[in-house]
């Protein structure tokens, strides 16, 4: 019994770290530039496919190829920002959020169709030779790949945290998020900051996509599911809180894993219900300040 509980907990954390990673990028772009990108999950999907094809065609291990995916997705995100979102930067905040949501919605319509044309609608999984392997500690099984996934998530989020707190550019990102007009007056290149921040957000989504491909499966339509997960986590954590997003991801992962024991297939709806309740009664999130 204890082993079952512990195993459920471990599985929940494995998935939850992924939720956290998927949400961090969304939280960052929303917090810094008030862009709520419903297409966030699509970048995750693209990142997963890049890693999948790197392994399939060139034999590049997904963990070694991780930086490549991050760079590719960074550039892809920066270009997408320039094409689709940069025209919004002058809008009034409320208008900007609404329009960004509509554009993200448009990306969500377009990307899966392109992916389907390019790579067919088949479900794919990234399967290096060591996938599926695991080792036991005290009767609890730890998979190599999920464990590495948690490690990657922690490293990425720590790196992002340090980057925002310790570097000069991170400071300009935080300044821009607090008040972009004042930041502009202080000589910060707001447009460039926005573009790079968006790129970082999509790069993290791409890394999360690799882990999704490794531990679950990829298909052109998987984006919306992950956007919803990321939205739940972001709302749970409080918008714009990077560290909070990771912990909220863990909470959601464990809740779903435990819920699956009692509620079976309805556990997926559990997260969504929590989301609605939080939205109603604590819109600033669990870790946010009112």
């Amino acid at each position, binding site marked *: 019994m204890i082993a079952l509980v512990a195993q459920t907990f471990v599985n929940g954390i494995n998935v939850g770290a992924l939720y956290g990673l998927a949400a961090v990028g969304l939280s960052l772009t929303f917090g810094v530039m008030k862009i709520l990108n419903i297409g966030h999950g699509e970048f995750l999907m693209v990142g997963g496919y890049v890693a999948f094809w790197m392994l399939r065609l060139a034999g590049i291990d997904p963990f070694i190829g991780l930086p490549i995916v991050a760079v590719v997705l960074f550039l892809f995100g920066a270009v997408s920002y320039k094409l*689709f979102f940069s025209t919004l930067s002058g809008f009034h905040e409320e208008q900007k959020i609404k329009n960004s949501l509509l554009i993200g919605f448009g990306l969500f319509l377009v990307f899966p169709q392109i992916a389907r044309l390019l790579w067919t609608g088949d479900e794919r999984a990234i399967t290096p030779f060591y996938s599926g392997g695991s080792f036991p500690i005290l009767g609890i099984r730890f998979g190599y790949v999920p464990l590495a996934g948690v490690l990657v998530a922690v490293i990425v989020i720590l790196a992002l945290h340090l980057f925002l707190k310790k570097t000069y550019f991170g400071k300009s990102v935080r300044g821009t998020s607090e008040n972009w007009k004042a930041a502009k007056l202080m000589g910060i290149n707001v447009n460039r900051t926005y573009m790079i921040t968006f790129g970082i957000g999509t790069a993290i989504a791409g890394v999360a996509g690799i882990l999704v491909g490794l531990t679950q499966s990829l298909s052109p339509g998987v984006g919306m599911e992950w956007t919803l997960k990321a939205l739940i986590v972001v709302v749970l954590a409080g918008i714009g809180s990077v560290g909070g997003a990771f912990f909220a991801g863990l909470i959601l992962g464990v809740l779903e894993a435990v819920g699956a024991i009692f509620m079976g297939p*309805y556990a997926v709806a559990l997260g969504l219900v929590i989301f*609605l309740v939080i939205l109603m009664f604590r*819109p600033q999130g669990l870790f946010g300040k009112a």
Partner: protein
Amino acid sequence: MSNTKRFTISGIIVVILLLIPVVVSRTDLMTWLTFTLLYIALSQSWNLIGGYAGQQNLGHAAFFGIGALLVRTLWLYGTPLPLALVAGALAAMIFALIIGFPAFRLKGVYFIIGTLVLAEILKIIFDTILPHASVLPSKLLNDYSLTPRYYLSLVIALLAVGLVYGISRSKLGLGLMSIREDEDAAEAAGVDTLKYKLTAFLISTGLAGLAGGVYAYFAAAVLPGHMFAAEWTFDAVIIVFVGGVGTIIGPIIGSIFFVLLQQLLNLFLPAGTHVLVFGILFIFVVLYLPGGLVGLIHKLKKNAS
């Protein structure tokens, strides 16, 4: 255009639409037309809350699904169809009333993602409770004819267009548009924003329920979960935006264009390509052409004169 001229043209179009089943016998053409009318009803119903009131409800599929599922069940158990349709619309409205109060506490973007999530919850629930396709019994399948389905969707489409047209010219319509432009200012000017939004929401969801009922009557076989699929919302949203958000004629043009493109592209390209084309059009409209196709026509007319 003067009012008399406008009414004459609308009258002629309605008469043509009424006569179509007499002249046309090709089933594929009739299916397209039925679907176009269904989409006109659905997108016009979304246009009321999303276009006129500016509350982008991304959970429209929930109300379409509730209407569809109830009408389907009642009808297959022998209830007369008109009665089932009324029940379906009422059920959608009751659900809207239940979630309307909490949902409208959410402002702006939170309303949008809240409604999106709500529809997803319903879809997951019905996918799980009712995993099997609902197929028409053989007796009904043998008598299956497109003509009554066409007329039913025509009636619902006319109802939706007429209702939204009437509202757009009423005090309610003005109030809704003022809420869209600036909710706080509208409130300050004495518009009871919650009451107005709820009224629009109820009418919009009731029409969505009716459209769902038409689909339930139309479909020979359907998965209950599919009635709640987010595509119903998304199709309506892109149709309205590409056609022209917050106009009467926009959703009509958008629906015709959408179904036409869908059918033409599906002849040569993999299914779903029309979503790609419409998605790109949608992004383009949001970024550069806020008036959609209707706005474009107006612009061209202005330049010409």
